């Protein structure tokens, strides 16, 4: 699976306005709603489900990265968004560090394999410090999309 298989380009956010965990999730989910990937009437339910998942254990997995996610019956296919915060956000991460790079995922309830393969794709790229640094240095949506495309084509050396 490639990042471009699930990342919605037009929902990518190069500079989050959010300053808290809940605001990040809300802002990113809103991006998926605005691009038609989450139904208007389901937005609050999706946000609540992601927050509930965070309550069961943070998805701030360290190295300045978080992957907030949920399964939700209302989405027909796996969709995701990428966002960057220059100042960093307290996400109660496993290593305690603020989070700068976010991958938010919403997947259908009945496709656990897709969800795992998306996590695989994301974590494989995130092991590469250069990928993380390029994302954090991006200031526009186009730059982030370009970094994602280069990662998909294995053009980013580590």
């Amino acid at each position, binding site marked *: 699976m490639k990042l471009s298989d699930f990342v919605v380009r037009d929902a990518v956010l190069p500079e989050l306005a959010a300053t808290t965990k809940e605001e990040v999730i809300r802002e990113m989910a809103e991006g998926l709603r605005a691009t038609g990937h989450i139904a208007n009437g389901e937005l609050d*339910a999706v946000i609540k*489900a992601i927050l*509930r*998942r965070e309550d*069961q*254990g*943070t*998805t701030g*997995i*360290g*190295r300045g990265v978080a*992957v907030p*996610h*949920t*399964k*939700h*019956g209302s989405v027909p296919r796996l969709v995701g968004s990428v966002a960057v915060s220059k100042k960093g956000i307290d996400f109660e991460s*496993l290593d305690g560090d603020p989070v700068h790079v976010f991958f938010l995922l919403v997947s259908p*309830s009945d496709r*656990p*394999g897709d*969800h*795992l*393969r998306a*996590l*695989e794709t*994301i*974590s*494989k790229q*995130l*092991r590469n410090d250069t990928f993380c640094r390029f994302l954090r240095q991006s200031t526009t949506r186009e730059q982030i999309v370009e970094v994602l495309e280069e990662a998909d084509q294995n053009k980013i050396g580590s």
Partner: protein
Amino acid sequence: MADDVVRRQLCVPNPQGIHARPAARLVELANGFQSRIEFVKGTERVDAKSIFQIMTLAAVQGTVLLLEARGPDAQAAADAIEKMIQELAETDAEASTSEP
């Protein structure tokens, strides 16, 4: 005490597979042991103490993993990790009751 090497073949039992939450719990458990602990899936070998590495396994239900623990507490580590993986089926069921 000489370092032991303990190997176990495990099969992922739960429909959701090793997703982020059990991955985080496995890493926490693994980090409580001195031994080097690795999972081998086919030709891939990952460090069980790194969540980034565990998540790259994409361990769906039915995936066969070789667990390899090497160190002074290898036996205890392998026992604990085997138990946690076997219990994923139950924790999955608990989690799903809280989802809409």
